[in-house]
């Protein structure tokens, strides 16, 4: 069995002369290298392509192969992101060899440059708001008649609906404040209890205001019983939805 070698690619960035100083701590991948062409660079590590085959077999786990590879991917993208604007590539992108990488960069130069300019000076922040459960009632059921019980059930459902409305309002207020400070926004696939799940592309000068708004209005939503989960800063993972191929 001969091991197939390939170049696992993590990100496209500007090809200025800089090195990955303080290379990120990686668990599975070798040290990342930059393949430069036409003022752009592809960030890669050499891999045995069979490595990814193990992903089909395993259950996702905190210390499994997938977690390891995904954490490495994120670490490399972030290391580049600290220096230069970056377009993260989808996980598990492998190109055959260095000539292939150069062909990719030369054929997509204009498009990539445009996207890099677009995300330059921005970081991504995520905010998710979920419905919270109604606070538990204190009164016991002992000695309650059937009619009283049904009346209370109905009241409790009305309260519940009102609470949900208040939480939805809080989530809307939060979103509209955040979207004003962002260059772009992407909504994620929502689960039934989710009121808001969005990624915001925020220009650096707006970051303080963005974080302040998220903290204040997030607290308001929490006060109404919703759960608020904020993450960031991220490289612009959610804002680089483009497809590149060698043309011609």
């Amino acid at each position, binding site marked *: 069995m001969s091991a197939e070698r390939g170049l696992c690619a993590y990100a496209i960035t500007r090809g200025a002369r800089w090195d990955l100083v303080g290379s990120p701590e990686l668990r599975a991948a070798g040290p990342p290298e930059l393949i430069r062409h036409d003022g752009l660079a592809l960030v890669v590590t050499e891999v045995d392509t069979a490595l990814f085959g193990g992903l089909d077999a395993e259950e996702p786990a905190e210390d499994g192969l997938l977690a390891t590879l995904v954490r490495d991917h994120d670490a490399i993208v972030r290391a580049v992101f600290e220096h230069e604007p970056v377009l*993260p590539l*989808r*996980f598990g992108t492998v*190109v*055959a060899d260095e000539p*292939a990488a150069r062909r990719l960069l030369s054929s997509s130069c204009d498009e990539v440059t445009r996207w890099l300019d677009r995300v330059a000076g921005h970081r991504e922040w995520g905010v998710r708001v979920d419905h919270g459960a*109604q606070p538990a009632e204190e009164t016991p059921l002992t000695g309650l008649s059937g009619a009283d019980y049904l009346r209370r059930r109905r009241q409790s459902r009305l309260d*519940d609906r009102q609470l949900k409305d208040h939480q939805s309002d809080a989530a809307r207020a939060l979103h509209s404040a955040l979207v004003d400070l962002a260059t772009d926004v992407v909504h994620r696939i929502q689960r039934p209890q989710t009121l808001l799940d969005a990624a915001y592309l925020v220009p650096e000068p707006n970051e303080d205001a963005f974080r302040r708004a*998220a903290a204040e209005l997030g607290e308001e939503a929490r006060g109404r019983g919703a759960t608020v989960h904020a993450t960031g800063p991220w490289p612009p993972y959610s804002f680089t939805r483009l*497809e590149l191929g060698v043309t011609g």
Partner: protein
Amino acid sequence: MESTSSSLADVLERVLDKGVVIVGDIAVNVVDIELLTLRVRLFIASAQTAREMGMDWWTGDPFFAPHSARAELDRRTTGLEAAEKVPERAPEAVHER
């Protein structure tokens, strides 16, 4: 809003199926990313659901338990401990079901 270390679910959500896609003969197909993403989504959803519901979801669901049995149980346990006398069985326990 603090930049804390992100959970694996947060990282997976961003890294797996987002970002630039490279197509054509220069790309080597090493993993079916759509299938992998689907599997991971299902896994995360079920793990989150189980955690949020604490695996005893019926006790906290207003439909099944109009007053939360968990809070009631805690209150009662505390009361019993304070009384330093543990009766064989709480008389209203039948309402907890």
